[in-house]
Every structure is written in C-alpha cells, then in structure tokens.
C-alpha cells in the first residue's frame, strides 16, 4: 500500500482523538505522572500531538537530537526503561481502544520504539 500509516490511521482527526485518550492514561499512571507534574496542559497536548503524528509516520521535523535534548532534563531526574515501557503500553492501549487494526498498531509501536535510545539518552 502506498499510503502512509498516518493517512491509513485517519490523519489529523485520528491524532486528536488519540492524544486526549492517551494523555489521560499517562496522567493517571502513578509510575510516570510525576514527569508531567509541572507541565502546562495546553503545551503538553501540543507535544503529544507531535508525538502521535511521528508515531504514525506523519509529517514531523523531529530529529534524534531533538528527542535527546527534550528529554535530557527528565533523564537527570530518573527517566528509565520502565517509564518508556509504560508509555509504550499506553500507546498500544489507546490505539486498541480506538479500534485501530493490530498490524497498524504494530507499525506505530515500531516507530515509537525507534526513539527509545534518544529519549533515554543512551
């Protein structure tokens, strides 16, 4: 299929639907919500939108270095593999809840997974 995953999943409306669902899960998860404690909600939502757009292979301008810089402060205060796994869990659960087919979820998860080293500063 020549369409991008982003288009097949449903483009921007799909991203918007996913972001709110996902962000509620993250804020309710005691394992990771401390990393979002002081964040401005509106700015966070915009960042989550960018994250989902990227996970769906849509238009984004994030480089590995951007991901590194953006998360460096969180790595200093203890961001680790477990936290990354928790976020991956919520990504999968969100897409499942939105009835995205399993093969597309796997594709999105693989893209998100590819940022692991940069996010964790390894």
């Amino acid at each position: 299929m020549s369409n991008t995953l982003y288009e097949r999943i449903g483009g921007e409306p799909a991203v918007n639907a996913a972001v709110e669902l996902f962000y509620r899960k993250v804020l309710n998860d005691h394992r990771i919500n401390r990393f979002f404690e002081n964040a401005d909600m509106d700015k966070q939502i915009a960042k989550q939108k960018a994250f989902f757009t990227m996970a769906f292979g849509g238009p984004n301008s994030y480089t590995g270095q951007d991901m590194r810089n953006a998360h460096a402060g969180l790595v200093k205060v203890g961001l680790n593999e477990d936290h990354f796994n928790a976020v991956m869990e919520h990504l999968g659960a969100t897409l499942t809840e939105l009835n995205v087919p399993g093969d597309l979820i796997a594709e999105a998860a693989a893209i998100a997974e590819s940022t692991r080293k940069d996010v964790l500063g390894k």
Partner: protein
Amino acid sequence: MTTLTIDQNKYVCQTGESVLDALLRENVNLAFACKKGTCHSCMIRSTNVTPPQSAQSGLKNTLINQNYFLACQCYPEQDMHLKLPDQSDFYRMGTVVTNELLNRNTILLIIAFEDAFEFNAGQFVNLQRSDGLTRSYSIANVPQQSNTLEFHIRRLPGGKFSEWLHDEVSVGDSIAVSEPGGHCFYLPERHEQGILLVGTGTGLAPLAGILTDALAQGHTGPIHLFHGSREVEDLYRINEMHQLAEQHPNFNYTPCLSGTKIPDGFVMGRVNDIVFSQFTDLKGWRVFLCGHPDMVNQMKKQAFLKGAAIADIYADAFLVAQH
C-alpha cells in the same frame, strides 16, 4: 501574491509562501519553532479578514472566533492586516463613573467611554496610570449600549495599582484602557451543553460576565457556578447570584468557604474539592476556571481527567505582580 500589513508597514507574500516565511524573509521579528502547525509559537491575528481554515486547525474556538491563526500554516488568499503578539496595544481614555466597595477588600470600578467598546464577556484589558504603571483586569459585564466596562478589584497588600484604585481614584477621573484580550469567553453554540464555572475571589468577575452572556444568549443546558474564598466577608454578589438562580431554573449557584466559620447556605471546603465531589464525570461539559493560579492549574488537569475535552476547558489564571 498578496500584501501583509503590520501597522504602517507593507510586506509582500509570494504565491506559495507562508505568512511566517514572508515575514522572516522581510526581517520581521516573529517567534516560531516547529513550522508544522504543532507548537503554536507563531500564532498571530488578522484584524481585517477571516484567515484560511487550514491555518486555524487545532486552535481553540474562541481564538478562531477572533481570527487568530498559525503564520507557518497560512498561505493568504487575500491581503491581510496583521497584529503580532508583542505589538503595543492601542489605548483609549475612559472616565470613572463608579468606584464603590463590593465587600471589605474589593471595589466595583465602572469606566465609561464615548463610543462603543467591543469585547467578549470574560475577556480582560490593561488599565494604565498616567506614569505608565499597567495591570490586567477581567471585565465583569457584557457588551451593552451604555459603553461601560465593569471591574472587580481586590486590594492587594502593597499592590501599587490596586491601592491606587482603592484609595486615590474617584468618579470623574480619566484612565487609559487597552484593547480586550484573552480567549476565556462564551460562544453561542451547543446550547444544551452543561457549563461549569469555578472561581476564587475576584475570579467571579469574568465568570459573572460569561454567565450573564450565556443566559442572555439562551443557553438551555445546566449552568453551575461555584465561587470560593476563605471567609464569607471575601465573597460578594451573593444575593444577586441567588436571585439569578431563582429566575433561571437551569442556573445553580454554590458559594464555598475554606475557612472555619460557615454560615447557613454556604458549603464548607476548598472550591475544587467541592466541585469534584459533586461532578465525577465532566464528559461533554464546558468548563471555565478563573482565579488563583494554583487552583486554576490544578483544576484544569482535574477537569481533563474527569472527562472534559481540552478544547472545552477555558482558564484565566491571575498573574499577580510582585510590587
């Protein structure tokens, strides 16, 4: 090819060029970051035309309503007049027609203008003293024939501007007032939607405006107002709100006190605790939050977690000047 006008300056926007790229090419200083429509850093406003829809994607509806748009996503279809975020406000002079106490530390200040003052109930303006000292205050009334703006101003201990308004400004004095700003206001859509209004202290001012506006525009859904402070002496307009609740079956008013002396008819506790003990599911609700920044930020998150969509949460946190 279109023309972009900022103040007296005109810039050319080439076909296929975004407003952001045109302004950057012309060395106009404008903040930006992602150039993808995600970060909203380059949000500016058109003062003459409705921007292309694609340039407003993802913005709050009250921003869309005021013709805000993302410069990086805007390929103009016609000439545009622009207002940048750091562009100085236009001030005009008004005359104080009322300065009286609402409670022991809050005044009602009414400023009248010769011509109509356009705004949305719930927005704020800057008031400026002749020496240049400036503070932002929320407008408490709705746009009307009489060309007045109403403010509720609490005396802050050591607050230069509020003490000046309380102690020195009297009826007949002139005061400079900026254009209105802010996106915390009522839009007449989804009339059956539930509306939750929560404020502390003079956070009642914008909420009272929004409430009056919603009722006047025929909102049919339930409207709940929670007004909180520590002591009963710091609340105000209590009787007026009770009367409004009697006149409008869909409007409900709950005054809340976080102190220890709780007279009959008041609910004990912090306003956010009280709200969320009564509302466990805010899915589909429109939420307005005004007042102390800690309360506002905490409630924003709580309202979202209780199911309110982020696009339906409107907040105005008071910024308190330190001197």
